């Protein structure tokens, strides 16, 4: 047998041995990291959410892009006053274990998610600083009371995943049980997670009958897997790997990149210096180069899909000369503008973060700032980003990426701008009262108040250096009919996928 024939034979055998492209109604999803946990109460983490959220465990309400808040396990809800909301639950829903879904399950899920036996990410992220109490009215009706009162409690309930009342409160589950259209079949640690369609689902039967999740940390490999047909969807690939127009979709991923300015330390406590920082950045130069086409220039903390997003604001135009002039003016008034400012970046925060930070540093230096870049891995970076801040710190700016796909700025503004906000570099009475006002309002008034706050932060206080609303890339195999949306950053509803 000559070499060529031998190679041919080998190649043939390989084709045969390649993992079968499965049945026509199965999909393989390739995620960027292995899941540590699969508990529904952790599903606000993006990769956990892409497996669990709305596939296995459903939420009480659901935020749908373009349609607003929609029913999910609750069919309708009303404000009872005094911080209490009444939710009417869907009838005829069963969990994967066969038990019926009722108000007790909701009460248990809320207690578990916000309880102190385990630290659930959903509890810590959305329900910190409030007390939730529940009152089961009947099997299909439940009253939920928040203290302090939350005008957007139904919106908050779009994050609350529901598990059976039998679920242990003091440990994370390794086989999640929910009411969703898919059941959790098996988790081969290090290899894959398998889901299959739930025949007893209350809604329509989905087109995708089974799903296989695999994990690859390298973006080029994820892209290659979809290219070769080994996987159908790679929800998150890098800009430089999105080279195939037929397969690659970009979507606004609800992430905002900004530089948090520390107002407590000179010279950053001077508004002229902060304005100069904003003018020194050539934001447009990043788009279509280091960052993807379609990246939006930011004027505020939350993406355009949130209510109260202020379309009247325009970003600071690139004007290094004016920046220099402002610095000179501040210097004339005795502000020590020559002091070294540390720019703190987070390693691996988003694709090309290092290039972005290097470019920003050079721009600041060109405008006359004495800027020094330091990149830190997440745990160390957190020490700079969140309070308590170090006592003996010098002037600092911290690069961060903030995610708000929930439609309301309340998820962002308190933490980032209130005096007591954990990541707030500012303490301004006016901002504090504006946040409190907007949080307590509803409807058009709420929207207007958020708008005013965005304008104040961007134009008058010049609190931070806002940079970009980011774009994500997904690669989707050609046999699927699926278009990623802003939600693809945090969930991947298999039921929304169909075949061509």
């Amino acid at each position: 047998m000559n070499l060529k024939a031998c190679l041919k034979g080998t190649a043939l055998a390989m084709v045969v041995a390649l993992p079968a492209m499965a049945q026509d109604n199965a999909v393989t999803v390739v995620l960027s990291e292995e899941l540590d946990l699969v508990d529904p109460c952790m599903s606000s983490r993006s990769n956990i959410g892409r497996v669990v959220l709305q596939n296995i465990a459903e939420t009480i309400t659901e935020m749908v892009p373009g349609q607003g808040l929609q029913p999910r396990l609750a069919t309708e809800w009303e404000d009872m006053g005094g911080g209490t909301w009444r939710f009417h639950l869907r009838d005829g829903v069963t969990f994967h274990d066969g038990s019926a879904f009722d108000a007790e399950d909701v009460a248990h899920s809320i207690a578990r998610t916000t309880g102190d036996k385990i630290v659930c990410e959903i509890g810590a992220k959305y329900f910190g600083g409030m007390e939730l109490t529940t009152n089961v009215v009947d099997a299909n009706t439940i009253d939920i009371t928040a203290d302090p009162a939350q005008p957007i409690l139904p919106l908050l309930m779009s994050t609350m995943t529901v598990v059976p009342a039998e679920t242990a409160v003091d440990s994370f589950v390794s086989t999640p049980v929910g009411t969703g259209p898919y059941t959790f079949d098996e988790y081969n640690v290090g290899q894959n997670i398998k889901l299959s369609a739930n025949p007893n689902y209350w809604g329509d039967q989905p087109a995708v009958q089974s799903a296989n999740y695999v994990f690859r940390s390298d973006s080029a490999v994820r892209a290659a897997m979809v290219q070769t047909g080994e996987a159908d969807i790679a929800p998150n690939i890098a800009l430089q790997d999105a080279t195939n127009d037929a397969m690659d979709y970009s979507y606004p991923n609800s992430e905002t990149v900004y530089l948090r300015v520390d107002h407590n330390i000179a010279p950053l406590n001077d508004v002229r210096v902060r304005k100069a920082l904003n003018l020194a950045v050539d934001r447009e130069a990043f788009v279509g180069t280091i960052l993807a086409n379609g990246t939006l220039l930011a004027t505020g903390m939350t993406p355009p899909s949130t209510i109260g997003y202020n379309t009247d604001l325009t970003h600071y135009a690139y004007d290094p000369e004016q920046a220099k002039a402002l610095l000179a003016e501040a210097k004339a008034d005795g502000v020590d503008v020559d002091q070294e400012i540390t720019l703190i970046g987070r390693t691996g925060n988003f694709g090309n973060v290092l290039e972005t930070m290097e470019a920003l540093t050079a721009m600041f230096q060109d405008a006359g700032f004495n800027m020094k870049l330091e990149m830190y891995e997440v745990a160390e970076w957190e020490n700079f980003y969140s309070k308590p801040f170090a006592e003996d710190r010098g002037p600092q700016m911290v690069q961060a990426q903030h995610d708000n796909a929930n439609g309301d700025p309340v998820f962002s503004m308190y933490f980032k701008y209130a005096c007591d906000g954990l990541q707030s570099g500012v303490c301004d009475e006016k901002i504090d009262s504006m946040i409190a006002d907007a949080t307590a309002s509803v409807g058009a008034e709420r929207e207007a108040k958020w708008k005013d706050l965005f304008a104040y932060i961007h134009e008058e206080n010049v609190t931070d250096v806002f940079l970009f609303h980011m774009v994500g890339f997904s690669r989707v195999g050609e046999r699927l009919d699926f278009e990623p949306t802003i939600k693809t950053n945090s969930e991947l509803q298999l039921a929304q996928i169909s075949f061509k």
Partner: protein
Amino acid sequence: MTAFLQKRAFASLISLMGLVVLVFFLSRLTGDPTTLYLPVDASLESREQFRELHGLNDPILVQFGRYVGDLVQFDFGMSIRRSAPAIDVVLQAFVWTLQLALITMTLVTVAAIVIGSIAAFHIGGVFDRIATFFSLIGASAPDFWIAIISIVIFSVGLGWLPTSGTGTVWHWILPIAVLFIRPFGLILQVVRGSMVSTLSSAYVKTARAKGLRNKPIIFVHALRNAMLPVITVIGDQAAALLNGAVVVETIFGFPGVGKLMIDSILQRDFTVVLAAIMVTAVAIFVMNILIDILYAVLDPRIRY
């Protein structure tokens, strides 16, 4: 020999204890895991609650005492990240690493000794030049380069092999091929160098002077003596593989212990880091004892 084994086992135990102490305190110095497990918006109370839950509020010596207390009962603690026993998490990954290391090292050893010896025997010849040149290039190319380019060529371009993952035997070819290159280059060089020295040393000369003109016999004779430094380097390379091949595991999505360790230290999942270190260390100690025995077998003059 039994006495020697007992002694070595005891010595390894001491090394292991030293390692545990070192890793425990060093890893704690890298910081508090709390911020990593909670969303950045988490309140100070939930942070406090997390620390309380995982015993991170106690003085470090108390934490160490508790850890050692559990350890003597073979309780390696729970993984914060996986919310599962740390030792289970580690053993699952280690099985993959062990297989990968065994297969790769067997191939490397055989190939490097055969090719290296031939090169040494014909030093300066065409074969020697080609072998040296390519093994050196292979040994000095970044492995993530080779890994990604081989995926681009063999999986995407030619469609011969799966890109990554586990499952069939074909999934193993690319990771092993990439892992093979560097130790092969290194060991080949050492085999060649050592063989050259041995062939030039007095006893080979003597053997030849005595009239032993038969090449194979000289070859075997020399090889046996040239193996000592070679085995040391093989041991070193095998130890590196047992500690996991972080880059290859990362790119090929191979669930080994190397990536687990790095991920765990990034996530400050200390129990897993410690359990992983202990498991790999025991494997490496066992291997080192085998190597010492091999020394004695190859060279009777070495006494223990």
